[in-house]
């Protein structure tokens, strides 16, 4: 954690990135994934939902002789895996990013309130985090999905509702450590308004650890979305998500391996990229642990 007052100024980000290959690699991987997700319309050779029941389970490189080559093969309904992979990345990334943003926002506000106001507010919020953490994720996921329906926004709700506690706790701890510091007491003594103090001095100091956690959470959510799809609780077919594709391919691991291999690798690559970038971010903020 950065120490009060005499904190080392972090190097400019781009310089740090350039000198640290792992973080650069992470950024590059992530850029690749995000770019292909954004440019899905242009990149994907086919409609990810277009079925060709007579062309099911064709291996990578198969061609129908009429201009369509399934570079990554076709799935059990004859849909182009490459196209589904690209569009699926879009959905999986969207879910993770929006969920992290949502849970971070919610956790930030609640953690800030808990740390700053203390007393019964803090008690209530902390007990809420306990309640949330004590409740098994699968049950909540199933309940929310069963209740609201298995659509993309609802999956985001599931993740947001179950993930905010970690941010709240970190923010609160951060607030507690900073709020007792000299410069904050000084600001208060000078008569600055409470909320002003909160926003200008305390809040910025909590951001750093939050961002690091947020990055790792993105990775975790990509994998958890896959697990939900595996258990049948994710976004509905025929929408392609990496989790859905993995679930679709689970029976075919030994024969039509391409159904699950590519989404599995995509998840790994994306999560690894996010983790690397998260590492880089943390190293930038606290160089002692750099590798």
């Amino acid at each position, binding site marked *: 954690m950065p120490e009060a007052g005499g904190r080392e100024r972090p190097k400019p980000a781009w310089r740090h990135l350039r000198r640290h290959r792992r973080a650069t690699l992470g950024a590059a991987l992530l850029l690749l994934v995000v770019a292909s997700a954004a440019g899905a319309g242009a990149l994907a050779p086919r409609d990810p939902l277009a079925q060709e029941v007579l062309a099911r389970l064709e291996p990578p490189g198969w061609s129908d002789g009429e201009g369509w080559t399934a570079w990554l093969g076709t799935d059990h309904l004859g849909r182009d895996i490459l196209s589904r992979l690209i569009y699926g990345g879009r959905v999986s990334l969207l879910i993770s990013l929006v969920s992290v943003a949502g849970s971070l926002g919610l956790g930030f506000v609640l953690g800030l309130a808990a740390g700053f106001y203390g007393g019964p507010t803090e008690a209530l919020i902390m007990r809420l985090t306990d309640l949330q953490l004590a409740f098994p994720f699968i049950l909540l996921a199933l309940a929310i999905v069963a209740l609201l329906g298995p659509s993309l926004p609802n999956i985001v709700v599931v993740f947001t509702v179950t993930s905010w506690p970690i941010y709240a706790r970190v923010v609160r701890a951060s607030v507690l450590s900073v709020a007792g510091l000299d410069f904050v007491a000084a600001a208060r003594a000078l008569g600055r308004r409470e909320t002003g103090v909160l926003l200008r001095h305390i809040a910025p100091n909590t951001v750093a650890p939050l961002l690091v956690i947020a990055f790792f959470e993105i990775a975790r959510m990509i994998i958890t979305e896959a697990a939900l799809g595996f258990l049948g609780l994710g976004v509905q077919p025929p929408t392609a998500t990496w989790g859905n594709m993995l679930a679709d391919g689970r*029976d075919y691991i030994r024969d039509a391996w391409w159904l699950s291999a590519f989404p599995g690798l995509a998840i790994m690559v994306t999560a690894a990229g996010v983790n690397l970038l998260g590492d880089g971010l943390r190293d930038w903020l606290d160089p002692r642990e750099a590798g």
Partner: protein
Amino acid sequence: MVGLTRREVLGLLSGAAGAAALGVPRRARAQKSVETLKVAISGDPGNLHPWMLNGMPMFSTFWPTVYESVLWHDEKMNLVGNLAERWEVTGSDIKLHLKPGVSYHNGKPFEADSVKYAVEQITAPTSKALWKSMIAAVHKTTIHDKHTITLHMDKPFRSVLMNLVTIAMIEPGHAQAAGERIGVQPVGTGPYKFVEYVPGSHLIVERHEGYYGPKPKIARIQFRWIPENGTRLAALESGEVQFINNVPPDQLARVEGNERLKLLSTSTARIIYMGIRTDRKPFDDKRVRQAINFAVDNEAIARTILRGKAQAATTPIAPMILGGDAKLPDYNYDPAKARALLKAAGAEGATVNMGSSNGRYIMDRQVAEAVQGYLQKVGLKVNLETPEWATYIGEVVKGDKAKYDMHLLGWGVITMEPDYQARDHYHSANTKRWTGYVNKELDKAIDEAVLIMDRAKAREAYHKIFATVWDEAPWLFLHYQPELIGVDRRMTGFAPLPDEWLRFPTIDLPA
């Protein structure tokens, strides 16, 4: 000799005599069978109560090893006697003549009071029995003597006779003492008796030495639950188990191409279909429903997704059922005709809210996705949902308030009795929760047909009923579900049958 019938004693003596005559020691003639047969099933029953179960993997696995009913099916699906040697139907009475000399696993004799007990328990107003509707029409029983009992109904329901196959006999004394714990302490009359059940893990049964009929060759059977398809198949391939059910259609080659294994399959009496709510626009128009049937290439689905192991539906009910063998006009794949019909009905580009289960029937979700694809090809807009089972079935049975315009289900006529499907799905008293289909004349026909005991006449009546249903198309008719079993190649004495009951006691597997 105590406990053996005269026939068995004779058999023993002649066998021994024959062996002595040949000078061959008896033991050398019998080939040694494997001690324990290891079976992996896709679903855990959770509860071994034979009157309470539901779901294909659940009742059809261990049920016929431990329990028996008064009547049964032979390999041709004819109704034959089991614990009842013979029966007579007089008016609306069924008289059962029970087999003497049968005893339960706990030694108590099987007699008419068992049948009475079963009937009364199942039909009681507070009964939680799943099969209550099967024999609900029986309002009284009369015991004539230890081995004769008559079931009294209001009217001569042929269906009740056929439905008796589903009523397992439980020893009354034990049932009363155990109450609901029967679910963990089964006592029946079957060739195997219960040893141990660890929910979620395994179930073990062992040969009942006091069984009145032919004794199974295999001393013990161990059932395990492996819900994950890949894992279950792997268990068979590695030799950890010698029998699995629900081989996924896309992995059939792993069994057929493996020289240690073989695939056993049959078409079952379970039809996979999509019910269409006929009480909503535009599905209230017969042309739209027929268009749906023309738009979907169920033959291609059966050939590709079900790998040719399923038969595309040619009648509303599986052909081996009474009345299911009518020759009906084909709903061949004709997207042009579908479009024309939709246009004529003014339903072009209509929206369809479709629902399907996910994993309850073989390839159910994939079939639904394929149907969605076909309907989209003729211009319909299809929203498909495949929630988990409890949510799905809960939504479907909301009936006219259900959000699905079309829902995928399977209906297994395990009793081989057409009324089971006709009444539940086409009689307006019951269609509210499925398709909302109302046809008063059809109702009358169904009500009359169930009272016809003569099979030839009944067949004609059902031909007419199913022809009407086929034409009216309250369903998208898909296919009859296959039963796909993977076993050790050396296994003999087993064949999957259309009523979905797996008959383990006749299996032999050399050690």
